[in-house]
């Protein structure tokens, strides 16, 4: 069975290689090859999952050693995989949602002449993401980590002829690189501290405590903070969140797969995977929770102000991942719920994005929600699936989001002390804002008046339901949004499944679970009610009103980009420009100056050579006279 693990990665990798090197002759079948290989990977994942379920909880982890990757004296990095319950969860999510989105893309990208390449990139992404979650050491994880970054770069910038897409792609890669720096430093720190960066020796396995136990708390805090930096970059957490909104320049399936369901959750995976390190570094854990809490509010506020449907959803993604990071920072009381929310979020957010894509498909690629309205009768399937996703994300009782988000809020309170109250309060507030902005999206898109506008070429939009290849994935994901949470929670199925890997402990919450649930419900109703009062009762203006100071700031991503632009971009430009000047005038100037003064000196010396034989004779005689005099003087002394 273990030997199948490599195939999980190999199948999509093969697809990427074939599709990208295959050339035009594969244009006709490329999308089917890509989809088939993604599905093949899912099937292998399912077989492994079935095998894993057949074993007892303690013997479920599998590993596969392929070859020695970088063997250098004292330094050992292998290409080898580890498949435990945590990785398995991700494998199923990635290949499952990934296959659905491949299917969806067949319809969505039908009219794009570079569809084959698009599927090649998608397969490349799947391979890298699977490598990320299957790696059994941090360096191999790093390969997957940057691999998904590359795929994300290629896919955000897929419509490269648009300068905005190219810029967004570059920005995403660069911001991620800052995070990667953190991962790279974390690996170096681990190497100098433990002499290894493989999961087994460092983090410990069943019955074998890892090397983590021997290190000082200061070292571990440093490692943990560097890992957090990496997670912030990949998962768009404050302060490295600015790329996610721009990343919506990519085709919508990309936003659904990479920038909602899978890649952006890699940061959460990293933290949960490194649980042993974080558990031993409470200071770092506190920072993680703060980052999570700040981001969940930040993303939610941004999501309230955006009129672009995808950017509103991007703000929501940021906010939901904030919940997961918050939970992951809580330690053993939160790890399982972070992953559970991650999975349910994968379903409903992917569903929401696909719904948004379906709407755009029918509306001439219009993204401004102020130009939608009243679409529910024109796109019934999209409306229903999007609506179910909406109910799931705001935490409507019984649906997926209700179970997973509620648990996180409870866990936040259970952290105890003042921190517990602050974090729990932030999480509750976030739930209210979530209800507000999602209701706003829902109303502006599907209810109210038609506010449709002709596009730039004057085509009136003719909203219509999308083809079946697009609606089927939406329906499947809607099922997941509705039932996954309940399925996981009944009998603590998910908890029992993951506990052997992540560990779990119940905190003692100062407030009862019922109180939390009730409070959440009340805030949910309040949030949705305000949104209804604002957008449902009166017609939505097509041109956005000026709005309050906060709204205006939120529309500009709370001025983060302006800050970056002024400090980093301008500052950097000045720095490089002045350095180019310095290099040219100072460093090179010294050399050229030497050359010039040599030239000047030789020019002056040249004048001595006047061509008159007699003056040469004088200098000869003079020289001889001096030599003779010197000799005589030497002799005299």
């Amino acid at each position, binding site marked *: 069975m273990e030997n199948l693990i490599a195939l999980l990665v190999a199948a999509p990798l093969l697809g990427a290689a074939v599709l990208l090197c295959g050339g035009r002759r594969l244009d006709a079948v490329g999308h089917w090859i890509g989809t088939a290989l993604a599905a093949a990977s899912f099937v292998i994942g399912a077989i492994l999952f079935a095998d894993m379920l057949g074993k007892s909880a303690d013997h479920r982890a599998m590993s596969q050693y392929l070859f020695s990757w970088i063997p250098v004296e004292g330094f050992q990095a292998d290409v080898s995989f580890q498949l435990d319950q945590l990785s398995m969860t991700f494998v199923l999510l990635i290949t499952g949602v990934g296959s659905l989105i491949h299917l969806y893309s067949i319809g969505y990208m039908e009219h794009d002449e570079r569809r084959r390449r698009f599927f090649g990139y998608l397969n490349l992404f799947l391979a890298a993401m699977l490598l990320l979650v299957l790696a059994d050491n941090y360096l191999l994880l790093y390969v997957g980590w940057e691999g998904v970054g590359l795929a994300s770069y290629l896919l955000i910038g897929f419509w490269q002829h648009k300068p905005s897409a190219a810029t967004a792609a570059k920005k995403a890669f660069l911001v991620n690189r800052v995070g990667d720096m953190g991962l790279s430093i974390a690996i170096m720190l681990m190497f100098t501290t433990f002499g290894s960066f493989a999961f087994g020796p460092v983090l410990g396995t069943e019955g074998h405590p890892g090397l983590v136990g021997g290190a000082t708390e200061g070292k571990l805090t440093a490692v943990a903070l560097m890992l957090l930096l990496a997670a912030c970059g990949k998962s768009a957490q404050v302060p490295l969140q600015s790329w996610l909104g721009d990343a919506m320049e990519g085709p919508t399936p990309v936003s659904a797969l990479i920038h909602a369901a899978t890649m952006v959750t890699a940061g959460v995976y990293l933290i949960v995977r490194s649980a042993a390190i974080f558990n031993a570094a409470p200071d770092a854990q506190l920072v993680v929770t703060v980052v999570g809490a700040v981001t969940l509010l930040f993303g939610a506020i941004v999501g309230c102000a955006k009129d672009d449907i995808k950017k509103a959803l991007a703000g929501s993604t940021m906010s939901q991942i904030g919940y997961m990071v918050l939970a992951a920072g809580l330690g053993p009381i939160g790890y399982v719920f972070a992953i559970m929310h991650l999975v349910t979020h994968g379903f409903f957010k992917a569903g929401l994005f696909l719904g948004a894509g379906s709407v755009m498909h029918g509306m001439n690629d219009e993204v401004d929600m102020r130009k939608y309205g009243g679409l529910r009768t024109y796109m019934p399937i999209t409306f229903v699936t999007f609506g179910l996703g909406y109910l799931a994300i705001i935490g409507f009782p019984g649906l997926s989001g209700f179970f997973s988000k509620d648990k996180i809020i409870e866990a936040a309170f259970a952290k105890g002390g003042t921190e517990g109250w602050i974090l729990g309060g932030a999480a509750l507030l976030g739930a209210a804002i979530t209800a507000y902005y999602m209701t706003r999206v829902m109303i502006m898109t599907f209810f109210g008046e038609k506010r449709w506008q002709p596009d730039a070429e004057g085509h009136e939009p003719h909203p219509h339901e999308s083809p079946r290849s697009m609606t089927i994935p939406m329906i499947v994901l809607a099922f997941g949004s509705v039932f996954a949470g309940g399925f996981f929670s009944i009998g603590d199925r998910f908890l029992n499944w993951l506990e052997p890997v992540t560990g779990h402990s119940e905190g003692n919450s100062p407030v009862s679970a019922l109180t939390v649930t009730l409070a959440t419900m009340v805030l949910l109703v309040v949030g949705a009610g305000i949104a209804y009062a604002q957008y449902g009762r009166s017609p939505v203006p097509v041109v956005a009103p000026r709005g309050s100071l906060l709204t205006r700031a939120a529309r500009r991503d709370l001025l983060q980009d302006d800050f970056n632009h002024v400090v980093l971009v301008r500052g950097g430009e000045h720095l490089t420009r002045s350095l180019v000047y310095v290099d040219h005038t100072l460093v090179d100037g010294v050399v050229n100056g030497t050359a010039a003064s040599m030239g000047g000196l030789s020019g002056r010396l*040249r004048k001595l*050579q*006047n*061509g*008159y*034989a*007699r003056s040469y*004779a*004088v200098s000869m*005689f003079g020289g001889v006279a001096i030599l003779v005099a010197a000799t005589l003087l030497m002799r005299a002394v």
Partner: protein
Amino acid sequence: MNPVNYLYLSALLFTIGATGVLIRRNAIVVFMCVELMLNACNLAFVVFSRLHGNLDGQIIAFFTMVVAAAEVVVGLAIIVSLFRSRHSASVDDASLMKL
């Protein structure tokens, strides 16, 4: 007669020759002055030979004469060809061999 006096004569001849090379412009005269300097040296060599009582100086004097003879041949040829091309024997006119 004290042979050292011949050395004084040699020095005097050399100085006259050197001065002539430096101040005269006519190539023939300059050339003759060079010859004068060579002969001054010859005289000094012979005197030294006499003073030290060996023949080295005289042998070198013979060498010098041979060199001088060769020099006369080449030098006069150059001066004659210069005179033919420029109708002047002034050394200052031939100042073109500079950078």
